[in-house]
Protein backbone atom coordinates (compact mmCIF):
# COMPACT_ATOMS: atom_id res chain seq x y z
CA UNK A 1 0.00 0.00 0.00
CA UNK A 2 2.84 2.37 0.92
CA UNK A 3 6.47 2.38 -0.10
CA UNK A 4 9.26 2.38 2.43
CA UNK A 5 10.24 5.83 1.26
CA UNK A 6 6.74 7.17 1.94
CA UNK A 7 6.72 5.77 5.46
CA UNK A 8 10.25 6.87 6.19
CA UNK A 9 9.52 10.42 5.02
CA UNK A 10 6.35 10.52 7.08
CA UNK A 11 8.17 9.37 10.22
CA UNK A 12 10.83 12.02 9.69
CA UNK A 13 8.18 14.69 9.19
CA UNK A 14 6.52 13.64 12.45
CA UNK A 15 9.75 13.86 14.42
CA UNK A 16 9.91 10.16 15.19
CA UNK A 17 13.35 9.23 16.51
CA UNK A 18 13.13 5.42 16.78
CA UNK A 19 11.04 2.67 15.23
CA UNK A 20 11.00 -0.53 17.28
CA UNK A 21 9.92 -3.41 15.17
CA UNK A 22 9.33 -7.06 14.46
CA UNK A 23 8.59 -7.33 10.73
CA UNK A 24 5.82 -8.93 8.76
CA UNK A 25 5.65 -9.21 5.00
CA UNK A 26 4.14 -5.74 4.61
CA UNK A 27 5.79 -3.54 7.21
CA UNK A 28 9.02 -5.48 6.89
CA UNK A 29 9.44 -4.07 3.38
CA UNK A 30 9.76 -0.60 4.89
CA UNK A 31 12.76 -1.49 7.01
CA UNK A 32 15.54 -0.71 4.56
CA UNK A 33 14.16 2.75 3.83
CA UNK A 34 13.80 3.54 7.51
CA UNK A 35 17.34 2.32 8.13
CA UNK A 36 18.61 4.74 5.51
CA UNK A 37 16.98 7.68 7.25
CA UNK A 38 19.45 9.94 9.00
CA UNK A 39 16.83 10.98 11.54
CA UNK A 40 15.02 7.75 12.43
CA UNK A 41 16.76 4.76 13.98
CA UNK A 42 15.40 1.27 13.45
CA UNK A 43 15.57 -0.99 16.50
CA UNK A 44 15.05 -4.71 15.96
CA UNK A 45 13.65 -6.75 18.82
CA UNK A 46 12.95 -10.46 19.08
CA UNK A 47 9.32 -10.37 20.17
CA UNK A 48 6.65 -7.71 20.14
CA UNK A 49 6.26 -7.37 23.90
CA UNK A 50 9.79 -6.06 24.01
CA UNK A 51 8.92 -3.35 21.51
CA UNK A 52 6.43 -1.61 23.82
CA UNK A 53 8.84 -1.59 26.73
CA UNK A 54 11.80 -0.41 24.65
CA UNK A 55 9.50 2.35 23.44
CA UNK A 56 8.59 3.12 27.04
CA UNK A 57 12.24 3.51 27.98
CA UNK A 58 12.83 5.69 24.94
CA UNK A 59 9.86 7.92 25.78
CA UNK A 60 11.01 8.26 29.41
CA UNK A 61 14.41 9.24 28.08
CA UNK A 62 12.94 12.01 25.94
CA UNK A 63 12.83 10.30 22.53
CA UNK A 64 9.83 9.91 20.21
CA UNK A 65 9.43 6.21 19.46
CA UNK A 66 6.93 4.33 17.32
CA UNK A 67 6.20 0.61 17.69
CA UNK A 68 5.79 -1.14 14.32
CA UNK A 69 4.45 -4.70 14.50
CA UNK A 70 1.82 -7.03 13.05
CA UNK A 71 -1.52 -7.65 14.76
CA UNK A 72 -0.35 -11.12 15.75
CA UNK A 73 2.39 -9.41 17.72
CA UNK A 74 -0.22 -7.14 19.26
CA UNK A 75 -1.92 -10.25 20.60
CA UNK A 76 1.40 -11.46 22.00
CA UNK A 77 2.31 -8.24 23.71
CA UNK A 78 -0.67 -7.51 25.95
CA UNK A 79 1.08 -7.37 29.31
CA UNK A 80 3.87 -5.18 28.00
CA UNK A 81 1.56 -2.63 26.41
CA UNK A 82 -0.83 -2.70 29.37
CA UNK A 83 2.02 -1.74 31.66
CA UNK A 84 3.50 0.95 29.40
CA UNK A 85 0.28 2.57 28.18
CA UNK A 86 -1.98 2.18 31.18
CA UNK A 87 0.08 1.69 34.37
CA UNK A 88 2.67 4.31 33.44
CA UNK A 89 0.35 6.26 31.10
CA UNK A 90 2.96 6.64 28.38
CA UNK A 91 1.52 7.87 25.07
CA UNK A 92 3.21 5.40 22.75
CA UNK A 93 2.10 5.41 19.12
CA UNK A 94 2.10 2.25 17.03
CA UNK A 95 1.77 1.14 13.43
CA UNK A 96 0.10 -2.25 13.29
CA UNK A 97 -0.23 -4.51 10.28
CA UNK A 98 -3.77 -5.90 9.95
CA UNK A 99 -3.29 -9.37 8.51
CA UNK A 100 -5.88 -10.69 6.07
CA UNK A 101 -7.95 -7.51 5.91
CA UNK A 102 -7.35 -7.01 2.18
CA UNK A 103 -6.23 -10.49 1.21
CA UNK A 104 -8.47 -13.17 2.65
CA UNK A 105 -7.49 -15.80 0.11
CA UNK A 106 -4.10 -16.56 1.55
CA UNK A 107 -5.34 -17.55 5.02
CA UNK A 108 -9.07 -18.30 4.68
CA UNK A 109 -10.85 -17.85 7.99
CA UNK A 110 -7.89 -16.02 9.54
CA UNK A 111 -9.02 -15.06 13.04
CA UNK A 112 -6.93 -11.90 12.89
CA UNK A 113 -10.03 -10.41 11.28
CA UNK A 114 -12.11 -11.46 14.27
CA UNK A 115 -9.86 -10.28 17.07
CA UNK A 116 -7.66 -7.37 15.98
CA UNK A 117 -10.10 -4.49 16.36
CA UNK A 118 -11.79 -5.83 19.52
CA UNK A 119 -8.36 -6.29 21.10
CA UNK A 120 -7.37 -2.72 20.27
CA UNK A 121 -10.66 -1.57 21.77
CA UNK A 122 -10.08 -3.71 24.86
CA UNK A 123 -6.65 -2.16 25.37
CA UNK A 124 -8.21 1.29 24.85
CA UNK A 125 -5.95 2.14 21.96
CA UNK A 126 -7.55 4.68 19.66
CA UNK A 127 -6.83 3.50 16.13
CA UNK A 128 -7.34 4.64 12.57
CA UNK A 129 -7.95 1.96 9.97
CA UNK A 130 -5.88 2.60 6.87
CA UNK A 131 -7.17 0.68 3.87
CA UNK A 132 -6.05 2.66 0.82
CA UNK A 133 -2.92 4.44 -0.44
CA UNK A 134 -4.74 7.77 -0.29
CA UNK A 135 -4.79 7.61 3.50
CA UNK A 136 -1.08 8.15 4.15
CA UNK A 137 -1.73 11.61 5.56
CA UNK A 138 -4.30 10.16 7.98
CA UNK A 139 -1.50 8.35 9.80
CA UNK A 140 0.24 11.65 10.42
CA UNK A 141 -2.95 13.39 11.45
CA UNK A 142 -3.75 10.70 13.99
CA UNK A 143 -0.19 10.68 15.30
CA UNK A 144 -0.29 14.43 15.85
CA UNK A 145 -3.70 14.28 17.55
CA UNK A 146 -2.54 11.54 19.91
CA UNK A 147 0.68 13.38 20.66
CA UNK A 148 -1.16 16.61 21.39
CA UNK A 149 -3.55 14.73 23.65
CA UNK A 150 -0.72 12.76 25.31
CA UNK A 151 -2.53 9.50 24.66
CA UNK A 152 -1.56 6.28 22.91
CA UNK A 153 -2.76 5.60 19.41
CA UNK A 154 -2.33 3.30 16.47
CA UNK A 155 -2.48 3.27 12.71
CA UNK A 156 -3.95 -0.06 11.64
CA UNK A 157 -2.59 -0.86 8.22
CA UNK A 158 -4.75 -3.20 6.17
CA UNK A 159 -2.79 -6.03 4.57
Amino acid at each position, binding site marked *: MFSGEQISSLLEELGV*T*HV*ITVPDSTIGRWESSIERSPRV*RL*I*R*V*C*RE*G*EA*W*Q*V*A*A*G*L*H*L*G*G*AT*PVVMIQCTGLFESG*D*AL*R*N*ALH*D*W*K*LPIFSIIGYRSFLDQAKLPGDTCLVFTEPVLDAWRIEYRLITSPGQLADIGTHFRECRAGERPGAALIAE
Partner: protein
Amino acid sequence: MTMNVAHDPPGAAMPLVRALEVLRANRRDDEIVIPTMGSAREWMKFGDLHPLDFVLVPSAMGHGTSIGLGMALARPERRVIACMGDGSLLMNLGSLASIVAARVPNLVVIVFDNGVYEVTGQQPTAGAAAGRMGTRPADFAAIARACGFDSVFECSDAAEWGANARRMIDAPGPTFIALTVEAVAGGTAPHSPGPAPTRARAFMAALGS
Protein backbone atom coordinates in the same frame (compact mmCIF):
# COMPACT_ATOMS: atom_id res chain seq x y z
CA MET B 1 35.93 -8.34 25.08
CA THR B 2 34.51 -11.01 27.34
CA MET B 3 35.74 -11.30 30.88
CA ASN B 4 35.17 -13.62 33.74
CA VAL B 5 35.94 -12.55 37.25
CA ALA B 6 35.25 -15.73 39.08
CA HIS B 7 34.31 -19.33 38.80
CA ASP B 8 32.74 -19.88 42.15
CA PRO B 9 32.22 -23.19 43.86
CA PRO B 10 28.84 -24.82 43.24
CA GLY B 11 26.25 -23.70 45.72
CA ALA B 12 28.01 -20.48 46.67
CA ALA B 13 25.72 -17.46 46.95
CA MET B 14 25.65 -14.03 48.54
CA PRO B 15 22.73 -12.41 50.37
CA LEU B 16 20.61 -10.31 48.00
CA VAL B 17 20.71 -7.35 50.36
CA ARG B 18 24.50 -7.42 50.44
CA ALA B 19 24.67 -7.58 46.66
CA LEU B 20 22.40 -4.54 46.42
CA GLU B 21 24.34 -2.64 49.10
CA VAL B 22 27.42 -3.03 46.92
CA LEU B 23 25.55 -1.68 43.90
CA ARG B 24 24.18 1.24 45.90
CA ALA B 25 27.66 2.08 47.23
CA ASN B 26 29.17 1.94 43.75
CA ARG B 27 26.41 3.69 41.84
CA ARG B 28 27.41 7.09 40.46
CA ASP B 29 25.10 10.03 40.76
CA ASP B 30 24.40 10.31 37.05
CA GLU B 31 23.59 6.63 36.53
CA ILE B 32 20.07 5.32 36.06
CA VAL B 33 19.20 2.24 38.14
CA ILE B 34 16.13 0.13 37.33
CA PRO B 35 15.32 -2.24 40.20
CA THR B 36 12.63 -4.86 39.53
CA MET B 37 10.77 -7.45 41.61
CA GLY B 38 12.86 -8.70 44.57
CA SER B 39 15.65 -6.23 43.96
CA ALA B 40 13.08 -3.41 43.94
CA ARG B 41 11.62 -4.59 47.24
CA GLU B 42 15.03 -4.60 48.95
CA TRP B 43 16.28 -1.44 47.19
CA MET B 44 13.39 0.58 48.57
CA LYS B 45 14.26 -0.50 52.11
CA PHE B 46 17.54 1.39 51.89
CA GLY B 47 15.77 4.70 52.28
CA ASP B 48 14.98 7.62 50.03
CA LEU B 49 15.12 6.83 46.34
CA HIS B 50 17.58 8.59 44.05
CA PRO B 51 15.89 10.79 41.40
CA LEU B 52 17.36 8.49 38.74
CA ASP B 53 16.07 5.32 40.37
CA PHE B 54 13.34 3.99 38.12
CA VAL B 55 11.68 1.43 40.38
CA LEU B 56 9.85 -0.71 37.82
CA VAL B 57 6.82 -1.46 39.96
CA PRO B 58 4.29 -2.15 38.55
CA SER B 59 6.04 -3.93 35.73
CA ALA B 60 5.38 -6.12 32.75
CA MET B 61 6.78 -9.59 33.18
CA GLY B 62 10.51 -9.69 32.49
CA HIS B 63 10.79 -6.33 30.76
CA GLY B 64 13.37 -4.57 32.92
CA THR B 65 15.98 -5.26 30.26
CA SER B 66 13.74 -3.83 27.53
CA ILE B 67 12.89 -0.59 29.31
CA GLY B 68 16.57 -0.29 30.16
CA LEU B 69 17.45 -0.72 26.51
CA GLY B 70 15.08 2.09 25.58
CA MET B 71 16.56 4.41 28.20
CA ALA B 72 20.10 3.55 27.13
CA LEU B 73 19.22 4.38 23.52
CA ALA B 74 17.58 7.66 24.46
CA ARG B 75 20.36 8.69 26.85
CA PRO B 76 23.67 7.51 25.45
CA GLU B 77 25.53 9.87 27.76
CA ARG B 78 24.30 8.02 30.85
CA ARG B 79 24.90 4.51 32.06
CA VAL B 80 21.73 2.51 32.67
CA ILE B 81 21.77 -0.42 35.11
CA ALA B 82 18.87 -2.88 34.84
CA CYS B 83 18.44 -5.21 37.82
CA MET B 84 16.73 -8.46 36.95
CA GLY B 85 15.79 -11.62 38.75
CA ASP B 86 16.57 -14.88 36.99
CA GLY B 87 12.86 -15.67 36.69
CA SER B 88 12.27 -12.30 35.04
CA LEU B 89 15.18 -12.73 32.68
CA LEU B 90 13.93 -16.16 31.63
CA MET B 91 10.67 -14.52 30.58
CA ASN B 92 12.50 -12.19 28.21
CA LEU B 93 15.71 -13.92 27.16
CA GLY B 94 15.35 -12.61 23.64
CA SER B 95 15.96 -9.12 24.98
CA LEU B 96 19.62 -10.04 25.42
CA ALA B 97 19.94 -10.48 21.65
CA SER B 98 18.00 -7.25 21.09
CA ILE B 99 20.38 -5.37 23.40
CA VAL B 100 23.42 -6.55 21.49
CA ALA B 101 21.77 -5.75 18.15
CA ALA B 102 21.07 -2.20 19.32
CA ARG B 103 24.73 -1.55 20.19
CA VAL B 104 24.28 0.17 23.55
CA PRO B 105 27.64 0.51 25.29
CA ASN B 106 25.98 2.27 28.23
CA LEU B 107 23.69 -0.57 29.34
CA VAL B 108 24.53 -2.91 32.23
CA VAL B 109 22.26 -5.86 32.98
CA ILE B 110 22.65 -7.42 36.42
CA VAL B 111 20.85 -10.70 37.07
CA PHE B 112 20.35 -11.64 40.69
CA ASP B 113 20.08 -15.39 40.29
CA ASN B 114 18.43 -17.20 43.18
CA GLY B 115 16.91 -20.04 41.16
CA VAL B 116 13.35 -19.39 42.24
CA TYR B 117 10.29 -17.26 41.62
CA GLU B 118 10.78 -15.68 45.01
CA VAL B 119 7.72 -13.45 45.25
CA THR B 120 5.24 -16.21 44.40
CA GLY B 121 6.49 -18.61 47.06
CA GLN B 122 9.93 -19.72 45.88
CA GLN B 123 8.92 -22.17 43.18
CA PRO B 124 12.00 -23.21 41.17
CA THR B 125 12.39 -21.64 37.75
CA ALA B 126 12.86 -23.71 34.62
CA GLY B 127 16.46 -22.51 34.63
CA ALA B 128 17.28 -23.74 38.13
CA ALA B 129 18.67 -27.19 38.86
CA ALA B 130 15.71 -27.86 41.14
CA GLY B 131 13.34 -26.94 38.34
CA ARG B 132 14.83 -29.36 35.87
CA MET B 133 15.13 -32.54 37.85
CA GLY B 134 18.57 -31.81 39.17
CA THR B 135 20.37 -31.28 35.91
CA ARG B 136 22.77 -28.36 35.55
CA PRO B 137 21.18 -24.93 35.93
CA ALA B 138 20.95 -22.53 33.02
CA ASP B 139 24.19 -20.60 32.65
CA PHE B 140 23.09 -16.99 32.22
CA ALA B 141 26.62 -15.67 31.75
CA ALA B 142 27.15 -18.18 28.95
CA ILE B 143 23.88 -17.11 27.33
CA ALA B 144 24.92 -13.45 27.49
CA ARG B 145 28.32 -14.31 26.06
CA ALA B 146 26.72 -16.26 23.23
CA CYS B 147 24.39 -13.35 22.48
CA GLY B 148 27.43 -11.14 22.06
CA PHE B 149 27.62 -8.96 25.18
CA ASP B 150 30.93 -7.12 25.18
CA SER B 151 31.66 -7.75 28.87
CA VAL B 152 30.35 -10.63 30.95
CA PHE B 153 31.05 -11.28 34.62
CA GLU B 154 29.82 -13.78 37.15
CA CYS B 155 30.24 -13.73 40.89
CA SER B 156 28.75 -15.37 43.95
CA ASP B 157 30.99 -13.95 46.65
CA ALA B 158 29.97 -10.68 48.27
CA ALA B 159 33.52 -9.58 49.02
CA GLU B 160 34.60 -10.20 45.48
CA TRP B 161 31.57 -8.38 44.10
CA GLY B 162 32.33 -5.51 46.47
CA ALA B 163 35.93 -5.32 45.36
CA ASN B 164 35.17 -5.47 41.63
CA ALA B 165 31.72 -3.95 41.16
CA ARG B 166 32.86 -0.58 39.88
CA ARG B 167 35.33 -2.13 37.47
CA MET B 168 32.61 -4.44 36.15
CA ILE B 169 30.12 -1.61 35.72
CA ASP B 170 32.71 0.50 33.94
CA ALA B 171 33.70 -2.26 31.50
CA PRO B 172 32.94 -1.75 27.81
CA GLY B 173 29.26 -2.45 27.31
CA PRO B 174 26.79 -3.78 26.84
CA THR B 175 27.71 -5.54 30.05
CA PHE B 176 26.15 -8.53 31.76
CA ILE B 177 26.79 -9.35 35.41
CA ALA B 178 25.45 -12.61 36.85
CA LEU B 179 25.34 -12.59 40.64
CA THR B 180 24.38 -15.76 42.47
CA VAL B 181 22.30 -14.73 45.46
CA GLU B 182 20.35 -16.43 48.22
CA ALA B 183 16.58 -16.38 48.02
CA VAL B 184 14.99 -14.16 50.65
CA ALA B 185 12.79 -16.23 52.96
CA GLY B 186 9.25 -14.89 52.82
CA GLY B 187 10.19 -12.41 50.12
CA THR B 188 7.01 -10.89 48.74
CA ALA B 189 6.20 -8.84 45.67
CA PRO B 190 7.30 -5.21 46.01
CA HIS B 191 4.82 -2.44 46.71
CA SER B 192 4.70 0.50 44.35
CA PRO B 193 6.44 3.51 45.90
CA GLY B 194 3.74 5.78 44.50
CA PRO B 195 1.47 6.37 41.52
CA ALA B 196 3.31 5.22 38.41
CA PRO B 197 2.36 8.16 36.12
CA THR B 198 3.51 10.67 38.74
CA ARG B 199 6.80 8.83 39.12
CA ALA B 200 7.24 8.67 35.35
CA ARG B 201 6.89 12.45 35.13
CA ALA B 202 9.30 12.99 38.04
CA PHE B 203 11.84 10.66 36.44
CA MET B 204 11.57 12.49 33.13
CA ALA B 205 12.03 15.80 34.89
CA ALA B 206 15.11 14.47 36.68
CA LEU B 207 16.51 13.42 33.31
CA GLY B 208 15.51 16.67 31.67
CA SER B 209 13.37 14.73 29.18
